[in-house]
């Protein structure tokens, strides 16, 4: 066992470090993480900048690297690493969420291209994406998992329409994507036709690991400590309140254990070699990682006390004058609301438990 306990999601999720960048929703710029917080991955903090979302190239990069053709690797990987291209994930459909394999978006081969028709939904940051990687049905006769292919689609191709979906916190991060007679060159097929489900499972295993977001939770805990030192309760800083401190300690224990669990998963993965199949233990990371993120966003909201109540959108000019509402407070409740998503996406926590029950416990 090595002495390194300082992990971040880069090492843990088999991602080439260069492929990780953040999209700064405020400046609408793509920036390397290092420019924000050196060495840290992903921050969702309270404060004037509400959140910065990692772009999704880190999901498709490893798929292309592992299953793509030489041409695809040459064409896409450097641009993913440099952040020249932004990607979004076109898996889910209105009728295919947890039951992803029931997806209906059709791709029909016509000469040197596919014609794609259908609808994707919940597509994160599609409004900023250059490319969308899609699961499409190429064989309607086969068993549902065996008729799926993995296509790389330029999102500016005629016939693609992106419509925003507003989330409960007022955020604009997800979209519906409509595909009507979209022509996709056959060279954009990853691997073999009708083998897309295998590549998707590989990607989802990585996604689960990445969703653990241990670095981000550490950052949030630091923020909770800082702000609970500022907010007063019964004449003392909230952080001195025993009940509050115990709640924080309980979350910290969970997080420390998960950090070690993550290292164990990574170490086991390295030893086993890349099998292209997700380790069912990655479901543990998803379950606990999302629970910790949700517990910390809730606790951060609690820090604010009554000041969690005002809804003040960012850069609301009317709030330029000084006010009693601390500038770090208004994003706390929206973050708590928004983070309900983490137990839903990337395969819901119920689905992760089904996976463990079957694959680990043999039930």
């Amino acid at each position, binding site marked *: 066992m090595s002495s390194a306990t300082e992990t971040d999601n880069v090492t843990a999720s088999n991602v080439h470090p260069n492929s990780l960048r953040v999209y700064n929703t405020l400046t609408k710029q793509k920036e390397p993480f290092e420019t924000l917080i050196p060495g840290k991955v992903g921050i969702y903090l309270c404060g004037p900048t509400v959140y910065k979302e990692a772009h999704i190239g880190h999901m498709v990069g490893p798929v292309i690297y592992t299953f793509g053709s030489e041409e695809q690797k040459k064409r896409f990987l450097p641009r993913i690493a440099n952040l020249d291209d932004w990607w979004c994930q076109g898996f889910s459909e209105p009728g295919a969420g947890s039951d992803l394999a029931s997806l209906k978006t059709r791709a029909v081969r016509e000469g040197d291209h596919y014609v794609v028709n259908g609808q994707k939904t919940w597509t994160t940051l599609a409004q900023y994406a250059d490319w969308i990687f899609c699961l499409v049905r190429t064989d309607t006769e086969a068993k549902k998992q065996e008729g799926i292919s993995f296509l790389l689609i330029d999102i500016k191709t005629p016939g693609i329409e992106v419509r925003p979906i507003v989330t409960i916190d007022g955020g604009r991060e997800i979209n519906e994507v409509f595909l009507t007679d979209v022509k996709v060159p056959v060279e954009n097929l990853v691997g073999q036709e009708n083998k897309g489900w295998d590549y998707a499972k590989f990607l989802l295993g990585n996604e689960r690991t990445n969703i653990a977001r241990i670095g981000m939770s550490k950052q949030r805990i630091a923020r909770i400590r800082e702000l609970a030192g500022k907010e007063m309760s019964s*004449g003392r800083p909230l952080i001195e309140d025993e009940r509050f401190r115990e709640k924080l300690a309980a979350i910290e224990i969970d997080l420390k254990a998960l950090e070690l669990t993550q290292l164990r998963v990574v170490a086991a993965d390295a030893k086993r070699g890349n099998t292209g199949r997700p380790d069912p233990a990655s479901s543990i990371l998803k379950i606990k990682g999302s629970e910790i993120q949700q517990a910390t966003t809730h606790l951060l909201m609690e820090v604010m006390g009554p000041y969690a109540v005002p809804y003040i959108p960012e850069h609301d000019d009317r709030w330029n004058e000084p*006010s009693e509402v601390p500038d770090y407070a208004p994003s706390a409740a929206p973050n708590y609301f928004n983070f309900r998503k983490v137990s839903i996406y990337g395969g819901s926590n119920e689905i992760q438990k089904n996976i463990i029950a079957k694959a680990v416990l043999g039930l």
Partner: protein
Amino acid sequence: MDFDLTEEQSILKDSLDRLLADTYAFEERKRHMASAEGWSAEAWNRYAEMGLMALPFAEEDGGIGGGPVETMIVMEALGKALALEPYFATVILGGGFLRLGGSAEQRSELVSGVADGSVKLAFAHTERNSRFDLVRVETTARKDGDGWVLSGSKSVVLHGDCADRIFVTARTGGEADDETGIGIFLVDANAEGVSRRGYATQDGLRAAELTLENVRVPAEAVYGDPSDALPLVRRVVDQAIAALSAEAVGVMSAMHALTVDYMKVRKQFGVPIGAFQVLQHKAVDMYVAIEQARSITLYATMMADSDDAAERAKAMHAAKAEIGRGGRLVGENAIQIHGGVGMTMEYAVGHYFKRMTMIDVAFGNTDHHMRALARAGGLFSAAA
């Protein structure tokens, strides 16, 4: 015990439920929320016509003479409909000070306006450092001739932006956390020296930041004893907690109904998701939490009028903590079971979840009341 409603109470419940079902559908609510006021004047007038504003006031003051049970019925119905109107601020909080702290003259001056819907009230207490403590007041009231001069800042004044008159806690003596030396003053929202900044709250209601700069009020603005009004504040807030608990029960049951319906229609893996036992059990946990919340709300309602301040406070701590943790369980599971749909602004369930979350923050969150109940010695005493 008899938990049945009287005939009159049943009529109140049925007619209000029907009114809201007919006129306050979720799409209507969205429209009201997006309007400049953030609520519906039409709906407000309908409540007044139905007598909801007059309900808790004594008949001799021009009211209907309803009690905590009537308030519970109304608040639960408003919770189910996610009503945006300033009923809680005006009738429960403001009306509470009027009923419980107002002299005969003060009541005769104001009750009729509240009862017909023409006067809106609010309660300004929270300050930058008060968090959930009722005792911590730094706003000051200085005696000036017959009247008083108020100075200070108040935060998150629920519906403080539309209120005509605002009940304000201010210190007439003592230190920031002394039990005595707190007075309660009725301030005209347009008085000189009053400035307010209104905003939407996370759950789509409205609130305001309030600044008082040497605001002069007459002697008649004082409610109760200007040097010892904390017991009155506690009493009004206790009744408000009982009312909020009832609203929470309405919010939770509506969320649950939406969730169970969704479980029957949403299909994955070829079956309704309601066929998955893990989701059935979640829905059952929600159901149990709601019934427990309903029971503790009944207890709070029965205790709301009690003159035993210590026992009454314990009942409210228990109720607020129970609806806080039950509400969180119900809300989080409602979103989870809806999957992606639950995360969308367009769909109702998220709005119930947000209201529930903000109810927990109002007048002390779960932790605050759990701690207070523990400090007060709990609900059941030790074996002799």
